[in-house]
Protein backbone atom coordinates (compact mmCIF):
# COMPACT_ATOMS: atom_id res chain seq x y z
CA UNK A 1 0.00 0.00 0.00
CA UNK A 2 2.91 2.34 0.69
CA UNK A 3 3.76 2.69 -2.97
CA UNK A 4 0.88 2.79 -5.42
CA UNK A 5 0.95 0.30 -8.27
CA UNK A 6 1.35 1.84 -11.71
CA UNK A 7 -2.16 2.96 -12.55
CA UNK A 8 -3.94 1.01 -15.24
CA UNK A 9 -5.05 3.50 -17.83
CA UNK A 10 -8.32 1.80 -18.57
CA UNK A 11 -11.00 4.33 -17.71
CA UNK A 12 -14.56 3.72 -16.75
CA UNK A 13 -15.48 7.23 -17.86
CA UNK A 14 -15.00 9.24 -21.07
CA UNK A 15 -13.46 12.31 -19.38
CA UNK A 16 -9.83 13.01 -18.54
CA UNK A 17 -8.06 14.44 -15.51
CA UNK A 18 -4.95 16.65 -15.62
CA UNK A 19 -3.33 17.60 -12.35
CA UNK A 20 -0.55 19.99 -11.28
CA UNK A 21 1.45 19.45 -8.12
CA UNK A 22 4.47 21.02 -6.44
CA UNK A 23 5.44 23.10 -3.41
CA UNK A 24 4.31 26.70 -2.94
CA UNK A 25 6.15 28.98 -5.33
CA UNK A 26 6.98 26.27 -7.86
CA UNK A 27 4.98 28.00 -10.60
CA UNK A 28 2.32 25.31 -10.96
CA UNK A 29 -0.75 27.57 -10.62
CA UNK A 30 0.53 30.02 -13.23
CA UNK A 31 1.16 27.19 -15.66
CA UNK A 32 -2.23 25.56 -15.10
CA UNK A 33 -3.90 28.94 -15.54
CA UNK A 34 -2.22 29.37 -18.91
CA UNK A 35 -3.18 25.85 -19.94
CA UNK A 36 -6.76 26.56 -18.93
CA UNK A 37 -6.81 29.81 -20.96
CA UNK A 38 -5.50 27.97 -24.02
CA UNK A 39 -8.26 25.34 -23.77
CA UNK A 40 -10.96 27.88 -22.93
CA UNK A 41 -10.10 30.04 -25.90
CA UNK A 42 -10.20 26.93 -28.07
CA UNK A 43 -13.72 26.20 -26.81
CA UNK A 44 -12.93 22.84 -25.21
CA UNK A 45 -15.18 21.21 -22.61
CA UNK A 46 -13.15 21.79 -19.48
CA UNK A 47 -13.62 22.34 -15.78
CA UNK A 48 -11.09 23.85 -13.41
CA UNK A 49 -10.97 22.82 -9.74
CA UNK A 50 -8.76 23.81 -6.84
CA UNK A 51 -7.62 22.06 -3.68
CA UNK A 52 -9.44 23.32 -0.62
CA UNK A 53 -12.01 25.47 -2.33
CA UNK A 54 -15.39 24.19 -1.17
CA UNK A 55 -17.55 26.11 1.30
CA UNK A 56 -18.28 22.82 3.07
CA UNK A 57 -15.41 22.88 5.54
CA UNK A 58 -14.58 26.58 5.45
CA UNK A 59 -16.07 27.42 8.82
CA UNK A 60 -14.47 24.38 10.45
CA UNK A 61 -11.09 25.13 8.92
CA UNK A 62 -11.31 28.74 10.02
CA UNK A 63 -12.36 27.73 13.53
CA UNK A 64 -9.59 25.18 13.75
CA UNK A 65 -6.91 27.49 12.42
CA UNK A 66 -7.87 30.55 14.43
CA UNK A 67 -7.79 28.68 17.71
CA UNK A 68 -5.02 26.32 16.59
CA UNK A 69 -7.00 23.21 17.38
CA UNK A 70 -6.00 21.14 14.39
CA UNK A 71 -3.87 18.04 14.88
CA UNK A 72 -2.15 16.25 11.99
CA UNK A 73 -5.06 13.78 11.89
CA UNK A 74 -7.94 16.26 12.01
CA UNK A 75 -6.14 18.60 9.61
CA UNK A 76 -5.83 15.73 7.18
CA UNK A 77 -9.39 14.41 7.62
CA UNK A 78 -10.93 17.84 7.17
CA UNK A 79 -9.16 18.28 3.86
CA UNK A 80 -10.14 14.75 2.85
CA UNK A 81 -13.80 15.52 3.59
CA UNK A 82 -13.51 18.68 1.54
CA UNK A 83 -11.91 16.78 -1.33
CA UNK A 84 -14.55 14.03 -1.13
CA UNK A 85 -17.27 16.65 -1.53
CA UNK A 86 -15.57 18.04 -4.65
CA UNK A 87 -14.84 14.57 -5.95
CA UNK A 88 -18.38 13.22 -5.55
CA UNK A 89 -20.22 16.35 -6.63
CA UNK A 90 -17.91 17.81 -9.32
CA UNK A 91 -14.97 15.73 -10.48
CA UNK A 92 -16.67 12.33 -10.87
CA UNK A 93 -19.88 13.61 -12.52
CA UNK A 94 -17.78 15.71 -14.93
CA UNK A 95 -15.49 12.81 -15.82
CA UNK A 96 -18.53 10.65 -16.48
CA UNK A 97 -20.02 13.50 -18.50
CA UNK A 98 -16.95 13.65 -20.73
CA UNK A 99 -15.15 16.74 -19.45
CA UNK A 100 -11.46 17.49 -19.32
CA UNK A 101 -10.93 18.31 -15.65
CA UNK A 102 -7.96 20.47 -14.61
CA UNK A 103 -6.99 20.30 -10.95
CA UNK A 104 -4.69 22.73 -9.17
CA UNK A 105 -3.26 20.32 -6.59
CA UNK A 106 -4.66 16.89 -5.99
CA UNK A 107 -4.28 14.01 -3.55
CA UNK A 108 -0.47 14.14 -3.81
CA UNK A 109 -0.61 17.45 -1.95
CA UNK A 110 -2.13 15.57 0.98
CA UNK A 111 0.38 12.73 0.67
CA UNK A 112 3.34 15.12 0.70
CA UNK A 113 2.11 17.69 3.23
CA UNK A 114 0.27 15.49 5.73
CA UNK A 115 3.11 12.98 5.82
CA UNK A 116 5.45 15.92 6.57
CA UNK A 117 3.15 16.61 9.54
CA UNK A 118 3.56 13.05 10.80
CA UNK A 119 0.59 11.15 9.36
CA UNK A 120 1.43 7.64 8.23
CA UNK A 121 1.83 7.38 4.42
CA UNK A 122 -0.03 4.07 4.48
CA UNK A 123 -2.99 5.65 6.28
CA UNK A 124 -3.04 8.56 3.81
CA UNK A 125 -3.00 6.28 0.77
CA UNK A 126 -6.00 4.41 2.11
CA UNK A 127 -7.82 7.62 3.02
CA UNK A 128 -7.71 8.88 -0.57
CA UNK A 129 -8.10 5.54 -2.33
CA UNK A 130 -11.53 6.59 -3.65
CA UNK A 131 -9.98 9.31 -5.86
CA UNK A 132 -9.64 8.67 -9.61
CA UNK A 133 -6.06 8.39 -10.88
CA UNK A 134 -5.04 11.36 -13.08
CA UNK A 135 -4.26 10.94 -16.77
CA UNK A 136 -1.35 13.33 -16.37
CA UNK A 137 0.24 14.61 -13.16
CA UNK A 138 2.61 17.50 -13.80
CA UNK A 139 5.07 17.95 -10.96
CA UNK A 140 6.59 21.44 -10.95
CA UNK A 141 9.90 21.37 -9.26
CA UNK A 142 11.87 24.46 -8.30
CA UNK A 143 14.89 24.55 -6.01
CA UNK A 144 13.87 25.16 -2.41
CA UNK A 145 15.47 28.63 -2.24
CA UNK A 146 13.80 29.81 -5.42
CA UNK A 147 10.37 28.64 -4.31
CA UNK A 148 10.69 29.90 -0.73
CA UNK A 149 11.90 33.32 -1.88
CA UNK A 150 8.98 33.67 -4.30
CA UNK A 151 6.54 33.09 -1.42
CA UNK A 152 8.27 35.05 1.32
CA UNK A 153 8.84 38.07 -0.96
CA UNK A 154 5.16 38.27 -1.87
CA UNK A 155 3.69 37.90 1.60
CA UNK A 156 3.93 40.20 4.61
CA UNK A 157 3.44 37.38 7.10
CA UNK A 158 3.36 33.61 6.81
CA UNK A 159 0.35 31.98 8.45
CA UNK A 160 0.70 29.59 11.38
CA UNK A 161 -0.24 26.31 9.69
CA UNK A 162 1.16 27.36 6.32
CA UNK A 163 4.54 27.76 7.97
CA UNK A 164 4.18 24.40 9.72
CA UNK A 165 4.39 26.09 13.13
CA UNK A 166 2.21 23.33 14.58
CA UNK A 167 5.15 20.97 14.16
CA UNK A 168 7.29 22.90 16.60
CA UNK A 169 10.30 22.81 14.27
CA UNK A 170 11.39 26.37 14.91
CA UNK A 171 10.01 29.45 16.63
CA UNK A 172 11.02 31.53 13.63
CA UNK A 173 8.26 31.42 11.02
CA UNK A 174 10.48 31.88 7.99
CA UNK A 175 12.82 29.18 9.25
CA UNK A 176 9.95 26.83 10.08
CA UNK A 177 8.37 27.42 6.65
CA UNK A 178 11.61 26.60 4.92
CA UNK A 179 12.12 23.33 6.79
CA UNK A 180 8.48 22.34 6.34
CA UNK A 181 8.66 23.02 2.58
CA UNK A 182 11.85 21.02 2.37
CA UNK A 183 10.16 17.99 3.90
CA UNK A 184 7.24 18.36 1.49
CA UNK A 185 9.63 18.68 -1.43
CA UNK A 186 11.37 15.45 -0.40
CA UNK A 187 8.03 13.66 -0.15
CA UNK A 188 7.08 14.85 -3.64
CA UNK A 189 10.42 13.71 -5.05
CA UNK A 190 9.83 10.24 -3.60
CA UNK A 191 6.57 9.91 -5.58
CA UNK A 192 7.94 10.82 -9.02
CA UNK A 193 8.36 7.21 -10.18
CA UNK A 194 5.69 5.45 -8.15
CA UNK A 195 2.98 7.86 -9.25
CA UNK A 196 4.17 8.60 -12.80
CA UNK A 197 4.77 12.31 -12.34
CA UNK A 198 5.80 14.36 -15.35
CA UNK A 199 8.68 16.39 -14.02
CA UNK A 200 8.61 20.09 -15.00
CA UNK A 201 11.51 22.43 -14.30
CA UNK A 202 9.99 25.42 -12.52
CA UNK A 203 13.02 27.63 -13.30
CA UNK A 204 12.43 27.55 -17.06
CA UNK A 205 10.92 30.71 -18.59
CA UNK A 206 7.13 30.83 -18.23
CA UNK A 207 6.22 30.85 -21.93
CA UNK A 208 8.75 28.16 -22.79
CA UNK A 209 7.46 25.90 -20.04
CA UNK A 210 3.88 26.50 -21.12
CA UNK A 211 4.74 25.48 -24.67
CA UNK A 212 6.13 22.21 -23.36
CA UNK A 213 3.08 21.65 -21.14
CA UNK A 214 0.67 22.14 -24.04
CA UNK A 215 2.72 19.80 -26.18
CA UNK A 216 2.59 17.03 -23.54
CA UNK A 217 -1.16 17.46 -23.03
CA UNK A 218 -1.67 17.27 -26.81
CA UNK A 219 0.38 14.08 -27.02
CA UNK A 220 -1.15 12.22 -24.11
CA UNK A 221 -4.78 13.22 -24.35
CA UNK A 222 -6.92 13.06 -27.42
CA UNK A 223 -8.10 16.65 -27.24
CA UNK A 224 -10.41 16.12 -30.19
CA UNK A 225 -12.99 14.45 -27.94
CA UNK A 226 -13.26 17.63 -25.84
CA UNK A 227 -13.35 19.99 -28.84
CA UNK A 228 -16.44 22.01 -29.70
CA UNK A 229 -18.91 20.03 -31.80
CA UNK A 230 -18.96 21.03 -35.48
CA UNK A 231 -22.31 21.86 -36.91
Amino acid sequence: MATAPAPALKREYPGALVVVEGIDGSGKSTQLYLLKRWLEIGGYRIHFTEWNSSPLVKSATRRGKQRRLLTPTTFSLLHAADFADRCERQIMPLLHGGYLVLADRYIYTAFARDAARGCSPHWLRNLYSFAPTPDITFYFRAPLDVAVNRIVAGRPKLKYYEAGMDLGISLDRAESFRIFQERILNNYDAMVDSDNFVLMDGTVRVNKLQKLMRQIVGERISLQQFAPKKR
Partner: protein
Amino acid sequence: MKRGEKSVPKAKAPKAAAARKKKGKAAAAELPSRFYGSPLPGVKPEELSGTLVVIEGTDGSGRSTQISLLTEWLESEGFAVQTMGLRRSYLVGEDIDGLLAENTVTRMTLALMYSTDFFDQLERRILPALRSGLIVLADRYIFTLIARAAVRGIGRDYLHGIYETSLRPDLTFWLNVRPEIAFDREFKKSQTISYWESGRDMSLSNDLFQSFIRYQSMIKREFEYLSKRHGFIEMDGESSVADVNRILRTRIASHLGIRSTHYTPSHALTHLWR
Protein backbone atom coordinates in the same frame (compact mmCIF):
# COMPACT_ATOMS: atom_id res chain seq x y z
CA MET B 1 -7.86 -6.68 15.73
CA LYS B 2 -6.76 -10.27 15.88
CA ARG B 3 -8.93 -12.69 17.72
CA GLY B 4 -7.57 -14.49 20.72
CA GLU B 5 -5.95 -11.48 22.30
CA LYS B 6 -8.39 -11.74 25.14
CA SER B 7 -6.43 -14.76 26.33
CA VAL B 8 -3.78 -12.39 27.66
CA PRO B 9 -4.66 -12.06 31.36
CA LYS B 10 -5.31 -8.49 32.42
CA ALA B 11 -3.52 -8.90 35.74
CA LYS B 12 -0.25 -9.48 33.96
CA ALA B 13 -0.32 -6.15 32.23
CA PRO B 14 1.64 -4.11 34.82
CA LYS B 15 4.36 -6.75 35.04
CA ALA B 16 4.55 -7.01 31.30
CA ALA B 17 4.83 -3.24 31.07
CA ALA B 18 7.82 -3.35 33.40
CA ALA B 19 9.33 -6.22 31.45
CA ARG B 20 8.87 -4.33 28.25
CA LYS B 21 11.25 -1.66 29.42
CA LYS B 22 13.94 -4.28 29.98
CA LYS B 23 13.37 -6.62 27.08
CA GLY B 24 12.11 -4.16 24.54
CA LYS B 25 10.12 -5.38 21.58
CA ALA B 26 9.86 -9.05 22.52
CA ALA B 27 7.77 -8.35 25.61
CA ALA B 28 5.73 -5.62 23.98
CA ALA B 29 4.50 -8.02 21.35
CA GLU B 30 2.71 -10.12 24.00
CA LEU B 31 0.42 -7.24 24.98
CA PRO B 32 -2.77 -6.42 23.14
CA SER B 33 -2.10 -3.04 21.61
CA ARG B 34 -4.25 -0.18 22.81
CA PHE B 35 -4.55 0.88 19.20
CA TYR B 36 -5.81 -1.12 16.21
CA GLY B 37 -2.85 -0.17 14.04
CA SER B 38 -0.14 2.38 14.53
CA PRO B 39 -1.14 4.87 17.24
CA LEU B 40 -1.99 8.46 16.42
CA PRO B 41 1.02 10.68 15.76
CA GLY B 42 2.54 11.80 19.06
CA VAL B 43 0.57 9.49 21.38
CA LYS B 44 2.34 7.26 23.91
CA PRO B 45 0.02 4.32 24.70
CA GLU B 46 1.71 3.62 28.04
CA GLU B 47 0.57 7.00 29.37
CA LEU B 48 -3.09 6.09 29.04
CA SER B 49 -4.04 4.84 32.49
CA GLY B 50 -7.81 5.38 32.23
CA THR B 51 -10.48 3.03 30.93
CA LEU B 52 -12.55 3.34 27.77
CA VAL B 53 -16.03 1.81 27.91
CA VAL B 54 -18.15 1.93 24.75
CA ILE B 55 -21.91 1.52 24.56
CA GLU B 56 -23.12 0.85 21.04
CA GLY B 57 -26.64 0.35 19.76
CA THR B 58 -29.15 1.97 17.48
CA ASP B 59 -31.41 4.89 18.46
CA GLY B 60 -34.02 3.52 20.83
CA SER B 61 -31.71 0.88 22.28
CA GLY B 62 -31.42 2.73 25.60
CA ARG B 63 -27.79 3.87 25.30
CA SER B 64 -28.19 7.38 26.66
CA THR B 65 -30.29 6.21 29.62
CA GLN B 66 -27.67 3.64 30.55
CA ILE B 67 -24.86 6.17 30.26
CA SER B 68 -26.62 8.60 32.62
CA LEU B 69 -27.10 5.82 35.16
CA LEU B 70 -23.57 4.46 34.83
CA THR B 71 -22.12 7.95 35.23
CA GLU B 72 -23.96 8.41 38.51
CA TRP B 73 -22.97 4.97 39.75
CA LEU B 74 -19.28 5.43 38.87
CA GLU B 75 -19.17 8.90 40.42
CA SER B 76 -20.74 7.56 43.60
CA GLU B 77 -17.97 4.95 43.62
CA GLY B 78 -15.41 7.75 43.35
CA PHE B 79 -14.47 7.44 39.68
CA ALA B 80 -14.27 10.52 37.46
CA VAL B 81 -16.15 10.14 34.20
CA GLN B 82 -15.79 11.78 30.79
CA THR B 83 -18.28 11.16 28.00
CA MET B 84 -18.13 11.33 24.23
CA GLY B 85 -20.65 10.85 21.46
CA LEU B 86 -21.39 11.63 17.84
CA ARG B 87 -21.34 15.22 16.58
CA ARG B 88 -20.08 16.58 19.88
CA SER B 89 -16.72 17.94 18.70
CA TYR B 90 -16.01 21.63 18.86
CA LEU B 91 -14.33 21.45 15.47
CA VAL B 92 -17.12 20.11 13.24
CA GLY B 93 -20.07 19.03 15.43
CA GLU B 94 -22.28 21.91 14.33
CA ASP B 95 -21.16 21.64 10.72
CA ILE B 96 -22.40 18.04 10.59
CA ASP B 97 -25.73 19.10 12.07
CA GLY B 98 -25.97 21.62 9.23
CA LEU B 99 -25.10 19.02 6.57
CA LEU B 100 -27.66 16.57 7.94
CA ALA B 101 -30.36 19.24 7.89
CA GLU B 102 -29.72 19.99 4.22
CA ASN B 103 -29.79 16.36 3.02
CA THR B 104 -27.52 17.22 0.10
CA VAL B 105 -24.28 15.80 1.44
CA THR B 106 -22.80 12.76 -0.29
CA ARG B 107 -21.86 9.56 1.48
CA MET B 108 -18.07 9.83 1.41
CA THR B 109 -18.07 13.44 2.57
CA LEU B 110 -20.38 12.62 5.44
CA ALA B 111 -18.28 9.62 6.44
CA LEU B 112 -15.15 11.77 6.53
CA MET B 113 -16.84 14.61 8.42
CA TYR B 114 -17.89 12.08 11.05
CA SER B 115 -14.34 10.76 11.25
CA THR B 116 -13.05 14.33 11.74
CA ASP B 117 -15.63 14.77 14.50
CA PHE B 118 -14.52 11.49 16.08
CA PHE B 119 -10.79 12.19 16.01
CA ASP B 120 -11.20 15.75 17.29
CA GLN B 121 -12.97 14.36 20.36
CA LEU B 122 -10.53 11.50 20.68
CA GLU B 123 -7.40 13.63 20.54
CA ARG B 124 -8.50 16.67 22.45
CA ARG B 125 -10.89 15.24 25.04
CA ILE B 126 -10.62 11.48 25.36
CA LEU B 127 -6.86 10.94 25.30
CA PRO B 128 -6.26 13.72 27.87
CA ALA B 129 -8.97 12.15 30.07
CA LEU B 130 -7.37 8.72 29.77
CA ARG B 131 -3.96 10.17 30.59
CA SER B 132 -5.49 11.51 33.79
CA GLY B 133 -6.92 8.10 34.67
CA LEU B 134 -10.60 8.87 34.01
CA ILE B 135 -13.30 6.46 32.94
CA VAL B 136 -14.51 7.42 29.48
CA LEU B 137 -18.07 6.38 28.61
CA ALA B 138 -18.60 6.58 24.87
CA ASP B 139 -22.16 6.94 23.63
CA ARG B 140 -21.38 5.15 20.35
CA TYR B 141 -17.92 4.86 18.81
CA ILE B 142 -16.26 4.03 15.50
CA PHE B 143 -18.53 0.99 15.05
CA THR B 144 -21.68 3.00 14.35
CA LEU B 145 -19.69 5.14 11.91
CA ILE B 146 -18.29 2.07 10.15
CA ALA B 147 -21.70 0.36 9.98
CA ARG B 148 -23.50 3.42 8.59
CA ALA B 149 -20.88 3.99 5.90
CA ALA B 150 -20.61 0.28 5.05
CA VAL B 151 -24.35 -0.11 4.37
CA ARG B 152 -23.98 2.82 1.96
CA GLY B 153 -21.40 0.90 -0.03
CA ILE B 154 -18.11 2.25 1.34
CA GLY B 155 -15.62 -0.60 1.74
CA ARG B 156 -15.16 -2.15 5.18
CA ASP B 157 -11.38 -2.34 4.73
CA TYR B 158 -11.31 1.32 3.74
CA LEU B 159 -13.24 2.25 6.88
CA HIS B 160 -11.15 0.09 9.18
CA GLY B 161 -8.11 1.72 7.58
CA ILE B 162 -9.28 5.20 8.56
CA TYR B 163 -9.94 4.16 12.14
CA GLU B 164 -6.84 2.01 12.58
CA THR B 165 -5.17 4.86 14.48
CA SER B 166 -8.01 4.97 17.01
CA LEU B 167 -8.01 3.56 20.48
CA ARG B 168 -9.24 0.04 21.16
CA PRO B 169 -11.94 0.13 23.86
CA ASP B 170 -11.44 -1.82 27.08
CA LEU B 171 -15.08 -2.94 26.97
CA THR B 172 -17.61 -2.62 24.13
CA PHE B 173 -21.24 -3.32 24.92
CA TRP B 174 -23.80 -3.73 22.15
CA LEU B 175 -27.39 -3.10 23.21
CA ASN B 176 -29.16 -5.19 20.62
CA VAL B 177 -32.84 -4.50 19.94
CA ARG B 178 -35.08 -5.60 17.09
CA PRO B 179 -35.79 -2.79 14.58
CA GLU B 180 -39.52 -3.02 15.36
CA ILE B 181 -38.89 -2.34 19.04
CA ALA B 182 -36.49 0.52 18.20
CA PHE B 183 -39.22 1.98 15.98
CA ASP B 184 -41.81 1.85 18.79
CA ARG B 185 -39.44 3.50 21.26
CA GLU B 186 -38.31 6.23 18.88
CA PHE B 187 -41.82 7.02 17.75
CA LYS B 188 -43.00 7.26 21.33
CA LYS B 189 -40.15 9.62 22.14
CA SER B 190 -40.28 12.04 19.17
CA GLN B 191 -43.66 11.36 17.52
CA THR B 192 -41.83 10.76 14.25
CA ILE B 193 -38.80 9.00 12.76
CA SER B 194 -35.72 10.89 11.64
CA TYR B 195 -34.63 11.11 8.01
CA TRP B 196 -31.19 9.60 8.64
CA GLU B 197 -32.21 6.94 11.17
CA SER B 198 -34.62 5.56 8.60
CA GLY B 199 -31.99 5.66 5.84
CA ARG B 200 -34.15 7.74 3.56
CA ASP B 201 -31.09 8.87 1.57
CA MET B 202 -30.85 5.26 0.37
CA SER B 203 -34.25 5.15 -1.35
CA LEU B 204 -35.24 1.88 0.33
CA SER B 205 -38.97 2.54 0.48
CA ASN B 206 -41.38 5.44 0.30
CA ASP B 207 -43.06 4.15 3.40
CA LEU B 208 -41.26 5.51 6.43
CA PHE B 209 -41.86 2.43 8.57
CA GLN B 210 -40.63 0.05 5.86
CA SER B 211 -37.63 2.24 5.19
CA PHE B 212 -36.73 2.35 8.88
CA ILE B 213 -37.04 -1.42 9.33
CA ARG B 214 -34.98 -2.22 6.23
CA TYR B 215 -32.29 0.29 7.08
CA GLN B 216 -32.01 -0.78 10.71
CA SER B 217 -31.87 -4.44 9.64
CA MET B 218 -28.93 -3.63 7.38
CA ILE B 219 -27.20 -1.81 10.23
CA LYS B 220 -27.88 -4.76 12.51
CA ARG B 221 -26.24 -7.17 10.08
CA GLU B 222 -23.16 -4.92 9.97
CA PHE B 223 -23.10 -4.97 13.75
CA GLU B 224 -23.26 -8.75 13.83
CA TYR B 225 -20.15 -8.81 11.67
CA LEU B 226 -18.44 -6.11 13.75
CA SER B 227 -19.37 -7.90 16.97
CA LYS B 228 -17.48 -11.01 15.86
CA ARG B 229 -14.53 -9.05 14.54
CA HIS B 230 -14.10 -6.85 17.61
CA GLY B 231 -15.44 -9.03 20.42
CA PHE B 232 -18.47 -7.04 21.57
CA ILE B 233 -20.34 -7.94 24.72
CA GLU B 234 -23.77 -8.42 23.21
CA MET B 235 -26.73 -7.58 25.44
CA ASP B 236 -30.48 -7.88 25.15
CA GLY B 237 -31.49 -4.25 24.82
CA GLU B 238 -35.13 -5.24 25.14
CA SER B 239 -34.74 -6.19 28.82
CA SER B 240 -35.71 -3.70 31.50
CA VAL B 241 -33.49 -0.69 32.17
CA ALA B 242 -32.67 -2.08 35.62
CA ASP B 243 -31.67 -5.49 34.28
CA VAL B 244 -29.45 -4.08 31.53
CA ASN B 245 -27.87 -1.70 34.01
CA ARG B 246 -27.14 -4.47 36.52
CA ILE B 247 -25.28 -6.50 33.89
CA LEU B 248 -23.34 -3.45 32.72
CA ARG B 249 -22.34 -2.65 36.31
CA THR B 250 -21.24 -6.22 36.92
CA ARG B 251 -18.99 -6.29 33.86
CA ILE B 252 -17.53 -2.83 34.46
CA ALA B 253 -17.03 -3.51 38.18
CA SER B 254 -15.08 -6.66 37.47
CA HIS B 255 -12.92 -4.80 34.95
CA LEU B 256 -12.18 -1.97 37.37
CA GLY B 257 -11.93 -4.12 40.48
CA ILE B 258 -14.91 -2.53 42.24
CA ARG B 259 -16.29 -4.95 44.83
CA SER B 260 -19.85 -3.74 45.19
CA THR B 261 -22.21 -3.39 42.27
CA HIS B 262 -25.04 -2.16 44.47
CA TYR B 263 -26.76 0.92 43.08
CA THR B 264 -30.07 2.72 43.40
CA PRO B 265 -30.55 5.80 41.26
CA SER B 266 -30.79 9.16 42.98
CA HIS B 267 -34.03 11.10 43.00
CA ALA B 268 -32.92 13.02 39.90
CA LEU B 269 -32.68 9.82 37.84
CA THR B 270 -35.52 7.67 39.15
CA HIS B 271 -37.61 8.56 36.12
CA LEU B 272 -35.17 6.54 33.98
CA TRP B 273 -35.51 3.46 36.17
CA ARG B 274 -38.64 1.85 34.86
